[in-house]
């Protein structure tokens, strides 16, 4: 009875492991999986603390009209900032990518943006145009680039706010941004700054086709 019980438990464990995909992982994968999960949990924990803090603030101000208004205004300002509607500043780097033997293509900038986001960029602009949720970059008739419908030209100055250590590492890592640009005939350089200013997005963001 004990034996069959133990076996049943073990069967179940095997199934859980298999469903999560953890079963087939090797040691190095398990390690990186663990550290990624841990980082995500920590992030969520921080957010949870913030939300709970807000909840108690709102609860305390529920009958106080002025208090409610100032809380709402604070949240409104944060949302405005998230959307890209405010000027922002902070430590970061300024990258310059330019045409050399080859022209910089839309996918070079797309690649750069993606790498910087992966490195935890908190705000980005290209040639002083702020990157927002719906930002796109395109080639027009193989002659020039547009970002969010506006023409941009080389040199492309990318301003980024975030952890400069991570931001630098996605540039310098083997196969990273620097290799990718230089191996394809484009030039790239960057400077680290204590304070980078990034201007706000100046156009309207809309969702008209959905509620």
């Amino acid at each position, binding site marked *: 009875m004990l034996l*069959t019980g133990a076996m049943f438990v073990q069967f179940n464990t095997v199934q859980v492991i298999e469903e999560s995909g953890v079963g*087939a992982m090797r040691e190095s994968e398990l390690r990186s999986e663990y550290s990624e999960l841990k980082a995500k949990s920590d992030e969520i924990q921080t957010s949870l603390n913030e939300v709970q803090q807000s909840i108690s603030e709102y609860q305390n101000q529920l009958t106080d009209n002025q208090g409610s208004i100032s809380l709402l205004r604070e*949240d409104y300002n944060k949302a405005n900032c998230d959307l890209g509607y405010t000027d922002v500043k902070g430590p*970061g780097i300024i990258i310059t990518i330019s045409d050399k033997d080859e022209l910089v293509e839309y996918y070079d900038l797309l690649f750069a943006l993606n790498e910087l986001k992966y490195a935890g960029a908190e705000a980005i602009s290209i040639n002083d145009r702020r990157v927002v949720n719906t930002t796109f970059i395109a080639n027009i008739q193989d002659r020039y680039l547009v970002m969010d419908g506006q023409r941009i030209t080389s040199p492309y100055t990318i301003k980024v706010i*975030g952890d400069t250590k991570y931001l630098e590492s996605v540039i310098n890592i083997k196969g990273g941004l620097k290799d990718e640009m230089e191996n394809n005939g484009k030039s790239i350089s960057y400077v680290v700054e204590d304070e980078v200013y990034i201007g706000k997005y100046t156009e309207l963001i809309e969702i008209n086709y959905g509620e």
Partner: protein
Amino acid sequence: MKREIIVGILCFLIAASICVQYRSVHNYTTNGQASVQSMSENKLRDRVLKEQENYNKLYAQLQDAQAQLEQLRKNSATNSDEAQQLEKQLSELNRLLGYTDVKGKGLIITLKDADANENSSSDNIIHDLDLLDIVNELFNAGAEAVSINDQRIISTSAINCSGNVVRINGQKVSVPFVIKAIGSPEGIYGTMTRPRGYLDLMRSADIKIEIQKKENDDLVVPKYTGTRQYEYLQVAE
């Protein structure tokens, strides 16, 4: 005598089930190649599973807390016109930010890797950069909200690849990739299916592509489920 037979049968059953169990464990760990499952791997696996559980628990708590906060904001706004106005504007910003589900017209693109054959190359499977290009083209085509396998694309979303796993917003996604876009179905369809467009390129590499127009306001692009905190950024006065 009867007792001995029963004990015998029991022993046989136990032996048989141990054997079956050994085989099933063996099958999934080796995955076609010989490997020794070390103790440290088992311990690590355990820690990963526990952390996964912890993550799921925290995530559910966060969802509940966010819903509670939203309700509280609405309640606190009933006191005055000014508060009501602010609450409305805040909700609208949150909608634009991707912090709410969006339901409306649009398009669904489903992508699957080409069938494997002796000529298969890496062009015949879908990569992180392919998805990046398609998202870029969708916004160029006028999409207002986009998700891939329920990961909402916002301004900080990275699409990257570690090993053979694609991650969006840090979350694993895998084929088939179901890409949903809110916007004008005709407009987006026209841009996405044009000759020399990115989908055209992928089709010539035998990637399987299905496009479905949704005209009936019932397409749901889910909200961003990640978190967004600033460690370095400040509003500049």
